[in-house]
C-alpha cells in the first residue's frame, strides 16, 4: 500500500468515527427539541411517529409559564445555583492554591480525604442533614440546598482548581515576590488574572452541579413556591403517564443555560488540564 492510499483510508476512518460521535450527541438533542414543538395529540400517536412536527406549536412552552409557575422555579434555581457556584469557586481558589503551591504535613491525608468524600453515598449525607435541618427549621429554604450543593460540589471543584494552578509556571509568582508582593497580593493580582479561564470553568462545574440536582431538592423542599426547575419538572411525571410535551419543553429550557456556558468553557477545561510545554 502506498503512503497516499494509507492516508486516504485513515482519513475516511477518522471521518466515520467523528460522524458517529456527532450523531450520538446530536440525535437525542434533536429529538427533545422536536418533541417540544409538537402537539400532544401528535406526541402520543402510536400509529405514526413524526420526525418533524406536523403542526408546529408553542403550547408546551406556554403551558410551562401559564399553569406551571416555571418562572418561579427559574428564579429559585438561579438564586440557589448562583450563590452555590460563587462560594464554591471562592473556596476552591484558596483550597486549590494551598494544595498546589505548598508542601505541608498532612497534604497526602488531605488528598485522600477528598477522595473519601466522593465515596460517601449522597443519601448518607442527606438523611442526617434532613434530620438536622428539620431541627433548626431550615427545611424548605434556599439555605438548605445552598449548604448541600456547596459541600457536594466543593471536593471536585477544588481538586480541578488545584490542577489548573499546577499548570501555571511558578516563575510568575517568584517574580512578584522579588518585587515585594505578599502571597495573597500575588494570588489576586498575578496568578488569578492568568487563571481566569480556569476560574470560569470551575464556576461552571459548580453551576452545572447545582442547577441539575434533583434528589436533594425533592427532599429538602416541600412547598411549590420554593421548587427549583428539576423538581418542578418532576411534577409532570405522574404515576401512570407523563406530560411529555411540557416535559420536553421544560427540559429544553433547563438544558439551555448550562449548554451555552459549557460551549464557551470546554476549551478552557482542556487547556487548563493540559500540563507542560505545549501550554500556551
Amino acid at each position: 500500500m502506498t503512503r497516499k492510499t494509507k492516508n486516504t483510508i485513515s482519513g475516511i476512518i477518522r471521518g466515520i468515527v467523528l460522524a458517529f460521535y456527532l450523531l450520538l450527541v446530536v440525535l437525542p438533542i434533536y429529538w427533545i427539541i422536536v418533541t417540544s414543538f409538537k402537539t400532544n395529540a401528535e406526541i402520543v400517536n402510536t400509529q405514526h411517529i413524526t420526525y418533524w412536527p406536523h403542526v408546529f406549536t408553542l403550547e408546551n412552552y406556554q403551558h410551562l409559564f401559564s399553569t406551571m409557575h416555571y418562572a418561579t422555579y427559574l428564579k429559585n434555581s438561579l438564586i440557589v445555583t448562583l450563590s452555590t457556584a460563587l462560594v464554591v469557586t471562592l473556596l476552591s481558589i484558596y483550597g486549590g492554591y494551598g494544595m498546589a503551591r505548598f508542601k505541608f504535613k498532612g497534604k497526602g491525608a488531605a488528598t485522600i480525604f477528598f477522595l473519601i468524600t466522593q465515596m460517601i453515598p449522597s443519601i448518607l449525607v442527606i438523611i442526617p442533614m434532613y434530620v438536622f435541618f428539620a431541627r433548626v427549621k431550615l427545611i424548605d429554604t434556599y439555605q438548605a440546598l445552598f449548604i448541600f450543593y456547596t459541600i457536594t460540589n466543593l471536593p471536585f471543584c477544588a481538586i480541578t482548581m488545584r490542577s489548573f494552578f499546577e499548570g501555571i509556571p511558578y516563575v510568575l509568582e517568584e517574580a512578584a515576590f522579588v518585587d515585594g508582593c505578599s502571597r495573597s497580593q500575588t494570588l489576586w493580582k498575578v496568578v488569578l488574572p492568568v487563571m481566569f479561564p480556569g476560574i470560569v470553568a470551575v464556576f461552571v462545574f459548580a453551576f452545572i452541579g447545582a442547577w441539575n440536582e434533583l434528589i436533594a431538592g425533592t427532599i429538602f423542599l416541600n412547598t411549590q413556591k420554593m421548587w427549583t426547575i428539576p423538581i418542578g419538572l418532576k411534577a409532570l411525571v405522574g404515576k401512570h403517564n407523563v406530560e411529555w410535551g411540557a416535559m420536553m419543553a421544560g427540559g429544553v429550557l433547563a438544558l439551555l443555560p448550562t449548554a451555552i456556558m459549557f460551549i464557551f468553557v470546554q476549551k478552557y477545561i482542556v487547556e487548563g488540564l493540559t500540563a507542560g510545554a505545549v501550554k500556551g
Partner: protein
Amino acid sequence: MSLATKRKLQPYLYIAPIMILLLLMFGYPLIKSIVMSFQDYKLTKLNKIHWNNFKNYKNMISDKNFWLLVKNSLVYVITSVIGQFLLGLGLALALNKRFRGRGVYQSIVFLPWAFSSFVVGLLFRWSFNGEYGVINDLLKKMGVIEKGISWLGTPGYSLAVIIFAMIWIGIPFFAINILAALQSVPAEIYEAADVDGCGTFRKFFSLTLPFIKPTIIMTILLRTIWIFNSFDLVVIITEGGPANYSQTLPSYMYSQAFSSYDFGMAGALGVLLMVVLSVYAVIFLKVTNYDKAGDF
C-alpha cells in the same frame, strides 16, 4: 509570632476553610449514619429509636432481592465504566489531530457533560417507550425488529437502557480528561519514534499509553465511584422495574430511606457501599501501580 512559624502556618490558612467545612459537613453525617445503621431508626417512630443488634445488616443480607441488587449494581457499574472509557478514549484520540471545524465540533460532542441526568433520563425513558418510542419505530423501519419491544418492561433490557443513558452522559468526562493528557505528551518523542520506524499501534501502546496512564487511572477510579453511588437515572427511567430487575443497591437505599423512612436500613446499605468502594479503591490503586497515591 516569628516569621518561621508564620511561614509554616501559611498553607493551613489557605486550606483551612475548605477542610473544616468538608470535615464538618461530611464527617458528622457519616458518623451519624454509621450509628443509625446499628439502630432501629424510622422517621415515623422517632421516639422509639434503639440499638437493634445488627438487625439492619441481617435483614439486608437476608432480603430476597439482595443478591439480585448486588448483581445489577455490578453489571451497571462495570459496563457503564468500560463503555464510557472506551468511547471517551476513542473520542479523545479522534480529537487529538487538528481538522477544520474542530472547535465547533468539540463544543457539540462535549455537551452531555452539561446536561442534567434528570432530563437525559426522561429523554431516554421517552425514546425507549414501548408504544410510542422513537427507538422501536427506527428499528422497525430498518427491519431489525417486526414488533415493538417493551424495553422498560423487560428484565435485562430495562437495565440496559439505564446503562446506555449513563454511558451517553459520561463520555465527555473521559474524552476531555484524556484529550488534555494526550496534548501534554511532548511531540519530540513521536518524532524520535518516527525516525525509528515505529507503527501507529506500536506508538500508541509504548509511547502514548504510558504517558496518559495516570489520567486514565484517576478518571476510571473517580468515575467508578460516582457511577456506583449514582441512582438518579434508575429512579427516573425505570424506578427499579420491572420487579427490581433494574434496581441497584443505591436506588434501593433511596427507596428505603424516603418511601419507607427506614433510615437504619438505609444507613446499613450506605455503610456497605462505602466499604465496597474503599476496598475497590485500595486494590485498584495497588494493582495499577499508581505511584502518586491519592494525588488526583
